[in-house]
C-alpha cells in the first residue's frame, strides 16, 4: 500500500486516490481544427515511462487534483504540488 502526499491533506494511503492523466498534455482545441490523430493521441496515447513519471492524480476525499512526480520502478514519490504551482 503506497502512501501519496496530497498537497492539501498530507500523506494518505493510495486507495484514496485516482490516477487522472499523465502531466503535460494540452487539450487540443477548437474541436473543428483538431484531427482524429491529434485527438486520439490526447485521449489514449501515454508514455507510461519506466522510471520518473509526472502524473496528475485526484484525491477523492478532498477533491484536489495535483501533480505528482514519482519513480514507477522504485515507487519513490519525489514531489507533489497543486496544479497552480506546477510549471506546466
Amino acid at each position, binding site marked *: *500500500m*503506497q*502512501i501519496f502526499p496530497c498537497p492539501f491533506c498530507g500523506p494518505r494511503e*493510495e486507495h484514496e486516490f*485516482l490516477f*487522472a492523466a499523465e502531466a503535460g498534455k494540452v*487539450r*487540443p*482545441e*477548437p*474541436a473543428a481544427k*483538431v484531427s*482524429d490523430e491529434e*485527438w486520439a493521441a490526447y*485521449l489514449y496515447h501515454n508514455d507510461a515511462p519506466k522510471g520518473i513519471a509526472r502524473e*496528475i492524480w*485526484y484525491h*477523492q476525499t478532498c*477533491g*484536489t*487534483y495535483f501533480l505528482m512526480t514519482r519513480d514507477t520502478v522504485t*515507487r519513490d514519490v519525489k514531489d507533489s504540488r497543486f*496544479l*497552480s504551482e506546477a510549471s506546466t
Partner: protein
Amino acid sequence: MSGWRHPDLGQAVDRSRILRFSFDGAAVEGFAGDTLASALLASGTRILGRSFKYHRPRGLMAMGAAEPNAVFDVTLDGRTIPNQRATLTPLLDGMQVRSVNTAGSAGRDPLGALDLLHHFLPAGFYYKTFMAMGWMRWEPMIRRMAGLGRVNANWHPPADVETMNAAPQVLVIGAGPAGLAAAKAAAESGSRVWLIEETCALGGTLRWRGGQIDGADWTVFRDATLAAIEAAGGRVLTDTTLWGAFDHGLFTAWQRRSDAPDIHWRLRPSRTILAAGAIERPMWFSGNDLPGVMGAEAALHHLVLHGAVAGRRIILATAGDGAYPVAGALCAAGAEVTIADARHVTPDAPEGVHLLRGTRIEAATGHGAVRRAVLDHKALDADTVLMAGGWTPSVQLHCQAGGKLDWDQTRDALVPRPGTSAVTTVGAANARYGLSEALAEGHAASGGSGPAPRPTVETGWSYAPLRPDCTLKGRVWIDMQNDVTLKDVAVAAREGYTSVEHLKRFTTLGMATDQGRTSNFAGLSAMAALTGRTIPETGTTTFRPPVQPVPLAVIGGRRRGALFNPPRRLMLEGAHKAAGARFREYGGWLRPAVYGTGDEAALALEEAQVARATAGLYDASPLGKIEILGPRAAELLDFTGYVRMSTLTQGRARYGLMLSETGIVYDDGVVLRLADDHFVLSASSSHVAGVIQKLEDARQDRFGSDGVVIIDRTAYWSTLSLTGPAARSVLNRAGLPDHGLPHMSVAETESDCVPLRIARISFTGDRSYEISVPAQQAAAFEARLVHALEAEGGRRIGLEAVMLLRAEKGYILVGKDTDGVTMPHDLGWTAPRERRTDEFVGKRSLFTAEAGRSDRRQLVGLVAEDDRGALPTGAHVVAPAGMRRSQGFVTSSGPAPGAGGSHALAMIEGGLSRMGEVIRIFHLGDIRHARIAPACLFDPVGGRLDG
C-alpha cells in the same frame, strides 16, 4: 509406536492438566502447553497424514512454520478450521482432529495404492495426460483425490477480526537471540519497539537450547528486554505471524488470540529489523519421507519444551556441530543415539552417544515407518532418523520488501544483500548462526551503545555443505508437501525447464502451504548441479506474501456482510418504515422500493396508477445537489455540459447531459439557476462523486481554481418529489406556496421559518414539484405534506413505481438505458452537437467516423405485438428475418401505468430511422415480436406537465 513422553522433561507443559482430543476418531491425551504436534508425537502416533499426490504415509518432520506434513482439519465447539499447522496449533481440550489428503484415515488410506503407480506419475504427468481429453472431465476426480483439507461450505466465520493500524519506531520481527538483542538495544535508546513473535513465547532457540547471557540465565536477558520495551512505550506480540511486506514500508501481521477475535495489524514502522531465524535443512536420501524421519532441531524442540521424545533407537545424520547437543539431550533422556557424521573431523561424541565419522546416510527403509537406516551400505536397526543438514536463512520478508540475495560461500547460504531493501536482517536470517554473533549483530543493528550481550558458552555451528546426490538409487524426496522427488527435478531439467521459476511451475516444487521452507534450497541446488551452474546463477523463485497461510477471514476483517459496502441511509427512513416501506439498495442508497405487503410488481403498478390518477410522493433525497458558485460558474457549466447553461435565466431549470471526453454520456440531470452566479446541479443519485470529480477537473485544470467554487450539498437537503394531476392541490392544502411556478422553474421560499426550495421538475411526465427542505427539518415537513397528500387521495410511492412512470415517458436512467458507447445523438438529442460553436467536454469525440455511423445503437421504444405482457429486460433484438445477430437489447421494460398495456425502452442499431418496423426479441430460446416506436409512449405532447 515410537514417540514417547518423557516422565520429567517438558518445561512448557503442565502435567497437572490433561487435555483429551481425538485424531482420526481415536482418543488421544496430551497436556496443557502441548501443541497438536507434540501431543501426537508423545502419543506415539506416527502417520499424521498422506502425501498430496501419491498418498504416501507421512509423519511429523519439523517445527513451527516449516512443517510440511502435519496439517489438519480441526473441529472445536462446532467450528472447523481446515489446514491447521499442527506445530503452531496449541492443544485444546475436546479438539477433533482429522488428517488431510486421506480417503480413509491417515493410518489406512485405500488411495495409498497410488504410490505403486509412481513410475507413471512423474512431474508434468497431469499437464500432459489430462489435457488431451479435456481437463474439465478429469478435474473433479483429481480434486477429490488431492487438495488438503475440506472446507465446510455452510459455515461462515464471523466477521469479527479488527484491522488495526500502528506506526512503531522500530519493528523487530522474530524474538530469538538476535531479535531480543535488537529490541533491547533499540528500546534502551528510547525507541518505541514492537517485537513480533510467531510462536507463543520469546527466546527462539534459547528456549530449547538454553544458555547464559552476560553471566546469567538467558531468561534474565529476556525479562530485561521486555522491561526495556515496556519502559519505552513499545509492545510485544506473541502468537503473531508477520506475513507480508508491501509498498512504502507497510507490514501486515496476524495476531492469534485465544480469548478474543484475532487482530489484523497493518504496521508502518520507521525502521524494521528482520530476525526471523533459519530453517534446518533436511537431508536427501532414499525414503527420507518415511514417518520417523525428522529434523534434529525439531526433535530437540519437542523434547525440551514438551517432553515428547522422537524415538528410542535414533540415528542422527549430520555434517555439522550443531546437532551434537541434540544427540546428547536425547541420549540423556533415555534414547539410544548414533551420530552418522559425513565429516571425518568432528567434535567428540556426547557421553553415551555412538559416533560414526565419515559416514553418510543412503536410505531409510520400512513399511509405513522407519525400521532401518542404511549407512555406507550397512543397514542398522532404527525407529527414528534425525537430519541436521545445515541451515537455510528465512529471508522471505527481505525479498518481499524488494531485497536481493547474495551467495555466501563460507556459510553455504543465500543471504540478504545489504542496502537492497529497507529491512535490516540480523542473526540466523543473515546466516549468523552462532549465539554470540547473532546477539552482536542484533545489538549493532539497533545502534546499541556499550558492549553487545555475550553468551557464557559459545555454541558450535559450523557444518560441511551437503547437496542432493542425483545419482542415488530410490526415491529421494525434496518437497514433502507437494510430493516432488529429486527425479522430478531431473525430468524438468531434461525437458528444458531449467529456470527455477519454470522448475517450480512444472514440478509444483515449493508451491505448497509451507512455501517450500524445507524444499526450495534442495530444488535449486539440484538444478544447479544438473545444469552445471552455480547456485547464484540458478537463482531463487520470487517470494510473495503471505509468508505463511493466513485465513481470508483475517484479511477480510469486518468488511463483510452488512459492512462490506454499506449503503447510505435516508434521513426519512423511519417515516418510510412506519408507512410499510420495503427497502432496497439503489445506486448506493437504501430506498423504499414499494410500500405494503404482497406481490411487489402489483404494488408498484398500483402505486404508479394512483400517481397518474391523483398524486404520489417519493423521497428523492439522494439526487445530487451540487452548488456551483462564482462569477465564472456559468462558464464552467457550459464547458462541462452538453447543453449551455449560461443562457439559462435566473429562476429557471434546464435538463442537461454531462459527457466524458470520449463523447460518452456520463450523467444526466437538471441545472437550476438560483442567481446570476449560483447554480444547483442535480446529478443522478449514484453519480454525485463522479460528477464532482469531473467538475473539479475542469475547475482546477482549466479555470485555475479562480472565479468558481463547487460545493456538494446533497446531504444537507432532503428532497421530496410530489407528482400527479393533484400535486398543486396537495401543495395548497398543505399551505405551501406554489408561486405560480411554470414547468422547469425554481423558487426559494420558506414556510413556518423552514427554508424551502421548490422546483417544477418532472421525472414522471405529470406536473411535479421537487421540494427540498433542510434534512434536520425534513420529518415534520414530510408528515405535513403526507397528511395533505392522503386527503387528496394520493399516496407515498416507492422507486419501483417511479421506474414505471418514467419509462413510459421515455425518460432515461444513465447506465441502465445507456451504456459505455452511448452518445447524446444516440438518444435523439442532436441540437448541441450540430449548433454549439464553443468548446465543451467530449465535443471532438462526437465527430469521429465512429460517432457518425448510421447504424449506431439508438434509444427507441418497443411495443409488444402479442399480449404476453412486458418484454424481458436484457433480451436481444434480432433482425425480422435472416441471421440471428444481435442488433441491440431491451434496457427497461414493464407495465405502462398511464397508457395501459406494457412498454419497453431499447437500444437498437439505427433504431430512430426504423419506426414502425417489427423486430424479433430473442430471450432464453423464446422469440417474440415487437414494433419499434418512439421512446415516449405516454402523453407525447407533454400536456400533463402543466396539467
